[in-house]
């Protein structure tokens, strides 16, 4: 490629320095959190190494762990339901020429593009107008709603990839609808389904804005709890919590990338 006079060094000086700047911009704040999570004092001044904030996080933060339990329950169920609805919906839309195909496809994806606050406001007004009590159940409904588009797109792109003649061959050989679905389409989609499930769990565990609107008394999830801690001021416990969440995120995203190989290019 670079047999011309513009050497790769010359060509890339600007983009290389901007890339380094971007990476520095991304990681400097994270690095500061990492370092100060091991600080022995409460302030943002380095005084010595200590595991203190990790032990405080683990042994002295029962309210935080209670909120984590709630987040886990919500994440599990909304990932389960959204994976089911999104997968089966993508299969239906992909394989059959139903009416309003384009409209349904667009409407499924739009919630993903709207600013989060819109869905939060709309669902809050909807739930209150319907007389529903705000709490874990309304959070579950909201999380399922914003996870469905992601599941849908991931499964769709997997369906787009595989050899359709397998399915046609199965029909020609007399396979029933149920057999084609359970023996061919679903097994082929399994990596995408697992990736979609993991991504839904991550999205649900993370969400703050929508949850903030549809949560009620007694349904404090982990992000809501973190938010109240941040508003209270800088606490070293948040530093240690951030590091643990960061590690968990890296593991989760590595896992979902592994399953989604070929889906995200």
């Amino acid at each position, binding site marked *: 490629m670079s047999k011309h006079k513009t050497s790769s060094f010359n060509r890339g000086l600007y983009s290389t320095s901007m890339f380094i700047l971007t990476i520095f911009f991304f990681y400097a704040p994270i690095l500061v959190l990492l370092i100060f999570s091991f600080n022995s004092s409460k302030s943002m001044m380095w005084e010595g190494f200590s595991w203190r904030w990790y032990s405080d996080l683990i042994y002295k933060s029962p309210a935080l762990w209670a909120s984590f339990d709630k987040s886990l329950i919500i994440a599990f169920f909304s990932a389960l339901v959204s994976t089911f609805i999104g997968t089966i919906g993508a299969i239906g839309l992909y394989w059959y020429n139903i009416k309003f195909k384009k409209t349904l496809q667009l409407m499924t994806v739009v919630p993903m593009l709207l600013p989060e606050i819109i869905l939060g406001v709309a669902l809050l007004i909807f739930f209150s107008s319907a007389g529903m009590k705000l709490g874990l159940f309304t959070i579950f409904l909201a999380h399922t709603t914003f996870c469905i588009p992601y599941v849908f797109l991931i499964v769709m792109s997997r369906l787009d990839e595989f050899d359709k003649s397998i399915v046609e061959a199965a029909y020609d050989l007399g396979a029933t609808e149920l057999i084609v679905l359970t023996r061919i389409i679903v097994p082929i989609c399994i990596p995408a389904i697992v990736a979609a499930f993991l991504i839904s769990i991550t999205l649900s565990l993370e969400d703050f804005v929508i949850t903030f609107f549809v949560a009620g008394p007694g349904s404090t999830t982990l992000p809501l709890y973190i938010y109240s801690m941040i508003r209270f001021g800088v606490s070293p416990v948040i530093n240690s*919590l951030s590091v643990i969440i960061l590690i968990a995120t890296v593991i989760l995203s590595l896992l979902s990338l592994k399953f989604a190989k070929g889906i995200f290019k």
Partner: protein
Amino acid sequence: MSNRRYGYYYTAPLVFWVLAFFLIPISIILVFSFLKKGLYGGVIYEFSLSAYQSLLNPTLFKVLITTLYMSCVATLLTLMLAIPTGYFIARSKHKNFFLFLIIIPFWTNFLIRIYAWIAILGNNGFLNQFLIKSGLLENSIQFLYNPLAVILVLTYTYLPFAVLPLYSTIEKFDFSLLEAARDLGATKFESFYKILLPNIKSGIFSAILFVFIPAFGAYAIPQLVGGRNSFMIGNIIARELTVTRNWPLASAMSSMLTFITIIGVLYFLRENNKGSKNKTNVKA
């Protein structure tokens, strides 16, 4: 494949969910935005344009302008970092590793990314402590709670959203075109401006869409690092909804945001279709 009936069975749960938890709630806020405000929250079922009229009152209008200004600057900064970054990754030999470096902050908890900046720039934060200890400062400076802090954190939060689509369009770009332009006597800037930019237009547009729209509707960021002069529409919506309890006004502002988003998405889809028809376009 020809059997439509199963298609309806399969999509029934999706149709139900999209209707019940997306289309109906969105329609409700659209309707509510044209109603009168109830005395203790809620609405009175009487047609009124007062919510839209109050969007034009000076205080709210100022917030609208501030929001527009801050999200535009954040989008511009994001593009300035994201285009060269995407270009660098697309031309490098370690694409997967560099992409992974971009994806990690993308997946990192949103609140923690905001908190990291509070820990650095806060009144008792790392930067102030550092400057005081090294004798450069007597008293701490308030770096946070102003428009600049909001713009910084908006850029930080949404930058990965811009790098990823830009990378994937730049990766498809035929780099020999740049060399050809240079051989024909174009300056570096000319070859960038006339060859690269027009060809990665769809990537730039999706980057703008993915950054500008969430920035325009931001709530948590101005709430945590913004001050009184950096209030954004999102803060007003939340206040009207939960504190002042003016549902029609909150609905009107949300409807406006939805409307802007839909226009952006439709324009994007149109441009994208155009772009895929004439693959390589060179601006004369």
